[in-house]
């Protein structure tokens, strides 16, 4: 088990190193000099030169990469070209919106998908199954930001149950914050829940075809007992894979949804940074999101091992 986790952890670190190089190189090839961009057209050459030195832009690319990564490891994301404030502070503020939103959506989607998927699988071919399959087919086809617009139209503008956008901040209280994130989380979660329930259903049905289910039935277990005691845990393996992938979709989706609801999250930060050519912010936010995705992949791998003893004992 420990060996398996170590192996996964090593591949996590490797992925991060290569990803950081990729991101750095991509941003490196951007034409134009941030210093002269920041100071405008009329700046004096020596002022620009001073700023370049201040930002560390005069060093070699390798040195700059190393100092960037070294900073990242210590939580120092550099200084924003536009606001001249530490990027880490800006990101931390925004993360307090984006991360809860993604988790909220993941929780909702899982809470919906599990019972729905199990229900459809246990009653294969029934009216319940057909309606689940039909609804989820539609759910997958709906773009989440459009669904968000509809939610705003119905629940914020017509019914006035929620505000149409904005975020009061966690200072306003946990429930106020949660309420502001509810519509965005629902918009994010429903399409994902559709995918997840379908995966849950088909994975369970596949597992129910396995020989060991027949063995269990020969022992005297009813169809339902065989499903709960034997099929469910085995069916979790593909479901975990999709769950891991969904987190990265949710993070990315959150960037778009934040725009619908005017939420001060990472997404809005990154779009502002692009228009202001504040590349160090773009670089840091992308790196952070990649870190989150890779970390989730790692956690999913660990979860596999908890579900499946064959992986646990693997060399």
């Amino acid at each position, binding site marked *: 088990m420990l*060996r398996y986790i*170590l*192996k996964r952890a*090593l591949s996590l670190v490797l992925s991060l190193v290569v990803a950081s190089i990729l991101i750095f190189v991509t941003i490196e090839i951007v034409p134009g000099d941030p210093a002269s961009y920041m100071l405008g057209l009329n700046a004096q050459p020596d002022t620009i030169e001073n700023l370049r030195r201040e930002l560390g832009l005069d060093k070699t690319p390798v040195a700059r990469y190393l100092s960037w990564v070294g900073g990242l490891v210590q939580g120092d994301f550099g200084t924003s070209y536009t606001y001249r404030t530490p990027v880490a502070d800006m990101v931390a503020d925004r993360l307090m919106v984006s991360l809860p939103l993604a988790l909220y959506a993941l929780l909702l989607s899982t809470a919906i998908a599990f019972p729905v998927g199990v229900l459809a699988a246990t009653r294969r071919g029934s009216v319940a199954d057909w309606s689940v399959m039909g609804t989820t087919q539609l759910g997958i086809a709906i773009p989440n930001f459009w669904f968000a617009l509809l939610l705003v139209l119905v629940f914020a503008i017509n019914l006035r149950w929620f505000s149409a956008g904005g975020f009061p901040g966690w200072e306003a209280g946990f429930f106020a914050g949660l309420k502001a994130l509810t519509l965005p989380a629902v918009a994010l979660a429903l399409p994902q829940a559709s995918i997840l329930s379908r995966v849950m259903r088909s994975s369970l049905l596949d597992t129910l075809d*396995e*020989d*060991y289910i*027949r*063995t*269990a*039935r*020969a*022992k*005297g*277990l*009813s169809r339902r*007992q065989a499903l709960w*005691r*034997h099929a469910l*845990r*085995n069916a979790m393996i593909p479901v975990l894979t999709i769950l891991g992938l969904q987190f990265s979709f949710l993070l990315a989706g959150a960037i778009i949804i934040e725009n619908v609801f005017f939420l001060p999250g990472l997404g809005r930060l990154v779009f502002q940074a692009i228009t202001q050519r504040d590349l160090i912010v773009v670089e840091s936010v992308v790196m952070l999101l990649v870190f989150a995705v890779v970390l989730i992949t790692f956690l999913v791998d660990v979860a596999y091992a908890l*579900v*499946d*003893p*064959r992986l646990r*004992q*693997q*060399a």
Partner: protein
Amino acid sequence: MITTNSNHHTDAQLRVNGLNLSIHETPILNSVSFDVRAGEVLGIVGESGSGKSMTAYSILQLLPDGSSLSGSVELEGQQLIGASESELCDVRGDVVGMIFQEPMTALNPVQTIGQQVAETVYIHGGVSRRAALKVARETLNRVGLPEAEFALDRYPHELSGGQRQRVVIAMAIALKPRLLIADEPTTALDVTTQAQILAVLKRLVLEDRMALILITHDLAVVANVADHLVIMRHGNIVEQGGVQEVLATKAHPYTRQLFEASGHKPDREGTSLTDKPLLKVDGLIRDYRLPRTRLFGPSRYFRAVDDVSFQLHRGESLGLVGESGCGKSTLTRAILGLDTIQGGVITIDGETVNAHHTMALSLRRKMQVVFQDPYGSFNPRHKVNRLVAEPFHLVKDAPTGNALRAVIAEVLESVGLAASDADKYIHEFSGGQRQRIAIARALVIKPALIILDEAVSALDVSIRAQILDLLASLVDTHDLSYLFISHDLSVVRSITDRVLVMKAGKLVEQGPTEQVFLHPEHPYTQSLIAAVPQLPD
């Protein structure tokens, strides 16, 4: 409730009468009737499609969707046909236990063996978890999985196929059922393991005075174990009675046919044995790399073939026997020049075989292969003429157009198919016909050596007999030599001149076939031959 020792004076434990089964309107069983008594073994024998497994599933009513079942299944006086699902659940596992063919997939991979055996006990109620685990422990001991090596918390993947089958048996007998149904319980196992599992079953029947229904395709298996015999074909019982009586009189023509096919010896009078060596294997070593145990540790290797040397002469039919995992398939791949070897030399007519593309096509074309699985051996998207012509890739001036068609027609006819079969797709053929096409593909470039890798193992006995006859006749007409690889000793005995015995990567014995079978020298060969179930003469 756990039924312990009740009295067993009822006449028939199970009485099946006029059982009819159809699945999606297709008739599967037709008026099947038989009895089984306590402490008695009933063998049900038939080829694929005979309905023998479906008979077993019908008793427990574990049938696929769309099945309709009628007739009478009386278990200790209780009528099971028409019983409710919950009544059937009470019967399954408690009064009737069942064992399946595939031990590798019959156990839940994420639960311990203890949990799975104990489940049989506590699912039928009345006992605590702890008591159930205690019963599981005792039952595992009874089937020959002692606590020292096989603790309750072991997982299925840590056990071999034979050990897993013992766990399945333990699950089935944990509550001492009155009837045990075993559906091809040893088909997926090696011959020595098969003998052990059959011995366990036989012992349990005696100890618990159970009735046992043993379903198999292998007449020899039941001949040694069963008291009564039912012979099935196309969903009908063609004959039943006491084992000795049925096998001695062979009253029904199908019984006789099955009996003869099981021990079939093809006519091999005209073999032109020479002493010119065709294939020489000298000190062959083949290592596989194992996954690393430590991240930065050195690679570890598994030696699948260990210093193997032998010769195959022109015109000879050489057998290679061994149990699964002994390295015989690895050896085949090395000889065919598919894998790089780590030591030794393989030569054909003096030329060295290697796995690189430097290996001359003219050398490759001297050998061809026929595999076990008649379904996986062909690309389903190609027609027979393209499939059979594939080895012409090895020939420089390969025939084309009409000349090619003529060659393919000729080779198809030589394996007993029609020239017109060339334009069909492979799914239009039965398993036996596909194996003929595989032989045609091997023959088409007139190789000197054909490697038959378990080539008849997946076939029903009567089809197997026909293919063995075909192989025997081709030797003379095509000037062939065979390397015949099989786990089935009786087949090897019937078709080879000399035999090699392989165990754990090494050749432990070799010699003329009859001599090895009559006077085996190595203890392993002796145990193999002793384990083979024999048909009475």
